[in-house]
């Protein structure tokens, strides 16, 4: 979770990622940000997020993203 918040903070430092649950819906992060997040997660956590998992629900909050990463790690 810490690494994910760190990645998100690098993109938009002013956002409170502990509480925000509508990052995509409120357009705080856009498609370019999402690709940067996917690349950083691949780089730092060695977890590959497939295209079919790139849906708003998985990127709307740091917690949802952490849950996705955990799910993908468990599947691996």
């Amino acid at each position, binding site marked *: 979770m810490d690494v994910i918040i760190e990645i998100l903070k690098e993109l938009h430092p002013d956002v409170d990622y502990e509480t925000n649950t509508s990052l995509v819906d409120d*357009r705080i992060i*856009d*498609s*370019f940000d*999402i*690709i*940067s997040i*996917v*690349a950083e997660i*691949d*780089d730092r956590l060695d977890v*590959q*997020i*497939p*295209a*079919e998992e*790139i849906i708003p629900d998985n990127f709307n909050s740091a917690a949802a993203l952490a849950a996705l990463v955990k799910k993908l790690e468990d599947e691996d």
Partner: protein
Amino acid sequence: MLFVSYEFIAFTILLFVLYYLLPKKCQWPLLLIASYVFYWIANPYYLIFIGTTTISAFAAGVLMDKAQGRADLAIKAAKEDGSYTSDLKKALKAKAKSSKWKILLVSMLFNLGILAVTKYTNFVITNINKFLEDGAALKAVDLIIPMGISFYTFQTVGYLIDTYRGTVKAERNPFKLALFVSFFPQLVQGPISRYGDLSKTLYGEHKFTEKTFTYGLVRILWGYFKKVVIADRIITAVTALIGDTETYTGAYVFIAMFFYAFELYCDFTGGIDITIGIAQCLGITVTENFNLPYFSKNIKEYWNRWHITMGSWFTDYIFYPLSVDKNMLRLSKWSREHLGKFWGKRLTVYLSAFIVWLATGVWHGAAWNFIVWGLMNFAVIMISQELDPLYLRFHKKFKVKDKAGYGVFEIIRTIFLMSLIRMFDCYRDVPMTFRMVGTMFTRFRLSTFTDGSLLQLGLGSSDYIVLAAGLLIILSVSIYKYRSKKDIRDRLYDTPWIWYGAMSFLLIITLLFGAYGHGYDATQFIYNQF
């Protein structure tokens, strides 16, 4: 059969009557018949194309589902007989994925191949001929381009990818899938619906309710008003301005730019209003394709509000898969290590965006002007992305971000920029577009607006009054939605006399001020050609 024709209106009314009179289980089969009749009237040969696409997508969907089903069964069986291991599960899933991928690839290439051959053969021939001697020149081929092929092919490919990903189950009834591919209101110009969304209401049994039906009716009338009163009126001036590039330079190009922006908006959103309105009358929910695009404060926001279903199609099915592809991630890693932080973060994102905008340009048409149009969008988005930190600093320092005046400035700036890029679509000739836009800065005469020149473009002063009043009505409704985030119909519906009064008003002004008769022709929608 044009949307703007008595035949189409009669066709739709007859459909509404039958739809609610026949037993409810006949509703979706009736829609399938109506859709095929609609397509058959346009050209019987079109049915071969749409039929082929449907059959191939049906077969591919079922085969992919079966491949997945086999893997799921094998995993279940292994769990029951105690031979289950996580490695076995992984192996079975990988095998299913590989089979599904092969089926997806073949079906996608087949359908996109049909699109490519019908739409792009002559573009390729023309460009090859530029390099050949006159005697060796290839002859253009006479090919049928089925109406709405780009729309239904993309919709079908979306269905195939969703089935591959497992986000939807394959449709097991070929006739239901045929309806999804051919649903007539959206055949002409979209929206590009997703199977997961449209199928929720497309095959259901719908009871007639006054509210849903009249909501749909108002939406249809709103669409006709925009199309017939505004777009089909202003097109006269746009055609004149674009048609004579010798006379209409300088300020005329500026006028053409905004007239075309107004025309395209009313034409495309009007057409989509008719589509969504017809669907709503039938109790079917079609995804919105616009969300006040001319209220966008930057180009990225504009593309989130204009032709939404096309933008999201390219994002979900091309941009994301391309960006998270193994090779792309490897390139991303390499660029971080070798090119530094700046390029490391940007290279793959920009590369994917470049490919997506190139594809968006090509999707719009087989011509260089569309390709340049796509790449201009790419360039502007990239530049504004890079300038973003600068904007943020500016906004922080001058605290203008929340001021209404600055918001209006941002909106006007975006409209101007998007209209400027759209000039490639207007003149349909890349060097000509650059030349004409250039004259806007070198030969601009302010007197063009006041010396009566505007009355020489095929529109009289009464036409300008109608256009101004139309703009005012559209603007008022849009500002209401922008501010309240509500559908104006929700407010009007509560008071019956206002509701039916608004409906009658729309009907009357469309009938009275529609651009028909005295030399006008009802025209096909601009997006129909894509």
